């Protein structure tokens, strides 16, 4: 039996981005002993990449904003598949969570009267995103990190969790390995919070880092918890596309929030060509009106570049497929044009979008204050995830909680920009709070040694076949399958092929081999990441096949419209005892009258 180190915590938080840190801080504040596991070094998680801002109805810039408008915007953006309770709590609590960050040292950009400044973003009726230039995520994660290190939390850096264990129908612990030495760590915990982020590495073109292999989704599913909405993957409309090595790197929506426009090869501003009916009343009729909105005119409506991400991404794909794309297969995003409108435009752009300026200057030799950027859609976010209770964030498995991207519900079929950072804060806090409460009421259980031993054996198997297949090759092929066959536009025949291909990849993954030893061996880590990637890929595919309509982030070639009967159901993925994936539909409970009325009033 492999050697295993033991750790005991009341609450084990897996993932140390915004949601994990916020959950750990809350659980510790409530007296729980907390272990925080991060796959990378502390402070490097994907939250650091978030750029545009955190959505909260502070009403500092437009006093017409309040939680009701934010709630209605979130529901409309999610095509009403959202967990309405989560959307309500999120809109109500986000302002307090943002102000709390300020009390912990975060420094947001300011309004003229010294309050937190807010900017425009896609799908938000009023300027709502508190921000720090275009590096809001860094400010947030650093604030939480610097606050959290004084809270008595045990941080396990560069540790990856392999499996969760249950006893008596509830959570008991987790087995992990440390990257540095390759040793196993067994965590015994009364409650576990998943905060592992997303699944972007299942795709070839993605804004996500190597960590985003769907670990939390797979851990939850394997332990018997339900996943939902896995067909809804967000393809962010603006990723870099040239040069090839930077393909997929995010270009923040704040570029459009600050006045950036989308143009095709012919210089035509194509976003005015197709405005969805449910957004027509809120969208500008002319470029002139759109510009007035950017400048803060309260009587003007949003430019169509600020429609929701799912729609903008599809419009870009339409231009590319019609042969009107840019030289490298995207379209142009132009912020330089604002020099026609304002003096010192170059300085203004550098001040508002400093990271974008440097990113293009350094990686693509392009000065965005003078030249349009070439951009195209990139896999960015998964709306689907662990099915949770809206108030407590507990999954269908007692003692297992989930918060942030790994949890489903808040965003429905499509997430609004800026709602992710507020999601982390609101539900990170709630998950930490209720996990600590659960831990107080339940004694610790010991994971079954036999099960633990079995997982260590499986994890070390790649070393037994050093001449087995290269795990990087398997991962690349998986990414091609998902990108090409289960991407932005989904076809029945292509998805059937994807199902066959995933079957073959599963078999190949069993024969992945690695050479060398267990110390900081990325080949081994890549082999171990294959299992979660295959699980989430299957969940996405199965759910995408089941939803025979187009809605939000999910677009079916043969079913281009919304189907009314699917507007009230989520698809839920579970594991049956022999270990196969099952799928069923779950009706969304009816919205209370009060919330219905808010939706109606804001239509």
């Amino acid at each position, binding site marked *: 039996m492999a050697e295993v180190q033991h750790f005991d915590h009341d609450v084990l938080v897996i993932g140390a981005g915004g949601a994990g840190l916020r959950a750990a801080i809350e659980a510790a504040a409530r007296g729980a002993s907390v272990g925080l596991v991060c796959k990378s070094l502390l402070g490097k998680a994907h939250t650091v990449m978030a750029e545009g801002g955190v959505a909260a109805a502070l009403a500092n810039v437009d006093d017409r904003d309040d939680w009701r408008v934010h709630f209605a915007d979130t529901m409309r953006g999610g095509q009403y598949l959202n967990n309405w309770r989560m959307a309500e709590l999120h809109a109500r609590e986000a302002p307090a969570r943002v102000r709390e960050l300020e009390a912990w*040292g975060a420094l947001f950009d300011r309004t003229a009267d010294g309050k*937190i400044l807010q900017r425009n973003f896609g799908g938000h009726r009023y300027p709502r995103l508190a921000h720090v230039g275009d590096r809001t995520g860094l400010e947030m994660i650093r604030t939480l990190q610097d606050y959290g*290190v004084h809270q008595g939390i045990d941080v396990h850096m560069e540790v990856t969790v392999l499996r969760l264990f249950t006893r008596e129908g509830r959570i008991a612990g987790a087995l992990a390995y440390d990257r540095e030495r390759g040793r196993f760590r067994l965590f015994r915990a009364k409650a576990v919070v998943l905060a592992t982020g997303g699944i972007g590495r299942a795709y070839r073109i993605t804004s996500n880092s190597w960590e985003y292999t769907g670990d939390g989704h797979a851990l939850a599913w394997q332990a018997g918890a339900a996943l939902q909405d896995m067909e809804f993957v967000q393809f962010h409309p603006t990723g870099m596309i040239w040069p090839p090595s930077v393909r997929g790197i995010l270009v923040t929506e704040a570029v459009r929030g600050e006045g950036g426009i989308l143009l095709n090869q012919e210089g035509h501003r194509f976003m005015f060509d197709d405005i969805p009916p449910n957004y027509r009343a809120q969208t500008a009729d002319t470029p002139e009106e759109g510009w007035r909105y950017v400048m803060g005119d309260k009587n003007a409506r949003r430019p169509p570049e600020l429609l929701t991400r799912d729609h903008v991404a599809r419009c870009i794909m339409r231009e590319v497929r019609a042969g009107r794309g840019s030289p490298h297969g995207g379209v142009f995003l132009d912020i330089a044009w604002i020099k026609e409108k304002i003096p010192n435009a170059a300085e203004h752009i550098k001040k508002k979008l400093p990271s974008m300026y440097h990113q293009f200057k350094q990686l693509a030799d392009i000065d965005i204050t003078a030249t349009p950027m070439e951009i195209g859609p990139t896999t960015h976010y998964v709306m689907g995830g662990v099915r949770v209770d809206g108030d407590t964030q507990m999954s269908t498995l007692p003692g297992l909680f989930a918060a942030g991207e790994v949890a489903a519900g808040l965003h429905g079929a499509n997430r609004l920009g800026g709602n992710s950072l507020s999601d982390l804060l609101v539900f990170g806090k709630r998950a930490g709070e209720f996990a600590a409460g659960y831990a107080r009421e339940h004694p610790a259980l010991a994971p079954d040694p036999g099960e633990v031993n079995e997982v260590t054996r499986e994890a070390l198997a790649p070393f037994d076949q050093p001449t087995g297949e290269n795990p990087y090759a398997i991962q690349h092929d998986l990414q091609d399958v998902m990108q090409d066959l289960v991407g932005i536009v989904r076809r029945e025949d292509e998805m059937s092929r994807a199902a066959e291909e995933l079957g073959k990849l599963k078999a190949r993954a069993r024969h992945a081999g690695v050479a060398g030893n267990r110390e900081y061996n990325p080949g081994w880590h890549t082999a171990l990441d294959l299992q979660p990637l295959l699980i989430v890929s299957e969940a996405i595919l199965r759910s995408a096949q089941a939803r025979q309509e187009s809605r939000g982030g999910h677009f079916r070639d043969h079913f281009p419209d919304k189907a009314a009967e699917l507007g009230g159901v989520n698809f839920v993925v579970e594991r049956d005892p022999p270990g196969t994936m099952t799928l069923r539909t779950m009706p969304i409970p009816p919205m209370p009258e009060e919330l219905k009325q808010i939706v109606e009033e804001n239509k």
Partner: protein
Amino acid sequence: MATATFRIWRGESGRGEFVDYATETTEGMVVLDAVHQIQAAQAPDLAVRWNCKAGKCGSCSAEINGHPKLMCMARLSDIDLHEPVTIEPMRAFPHHRDLVTDVSWNFRVKTKIRKFTPRKPDAADGTWRMLQEDVDRVQEHRKCIECFLCQDVCHVLRDHHLHEEFIGPRFLVYVAALEMHPLDVLDRREELRKAHGIGYCNITKCCTTVCPENIKITDNAIIPLKERVVDQAFDPLVKLARLFRKKGTPEE
């Protein structure tokens, strides 16, 4: 397509050697792309730390042709590819394996710095008012992505190994951000002089040169802190006041 040679440090716990790998180069490639290509095709166990690949997380710090840099922001078009490109781990930290070093010392140092402590809120709703110009000055320091390249290049740490006496440029920037924060009320000058060892810095500005975020570490963080410390320690009025305040307690 052209081929270039990358001379990469391979080994464990400080022992090791350079190994040459040839790989194809394409337009716009950065050093981290080359490392990944080599890892995927030739050396699957080649250890390298990275995350965002966009210069935002500060994970992939290394020494490229002897210069401390982020691998993800080091473009091959800026490097002479006629000669092998050497890639080594940061040398100021204990070595783990290949390009990965043990940077945990940095995380321990941060916990010893007294945390942000705000003044009472300005408004009844618990919020504060701050001017953008007061925020700007601190935001420069808060841009830091904790890549630790400044720590790597600082001779006090790299050559003299004074890790126990000196917190290094990264954490002087961190203290500067706290001290200049419009809301913070603590005074950290005493520990800057003693526990944090600010006096060891003799402003050679190497840290500023390597900062990928272009933070003017020496001019805008360290020198202002040194000035504050000097004001406090040697101002005769302050000294006098202290004498009266701490009657009977010996001056150290």
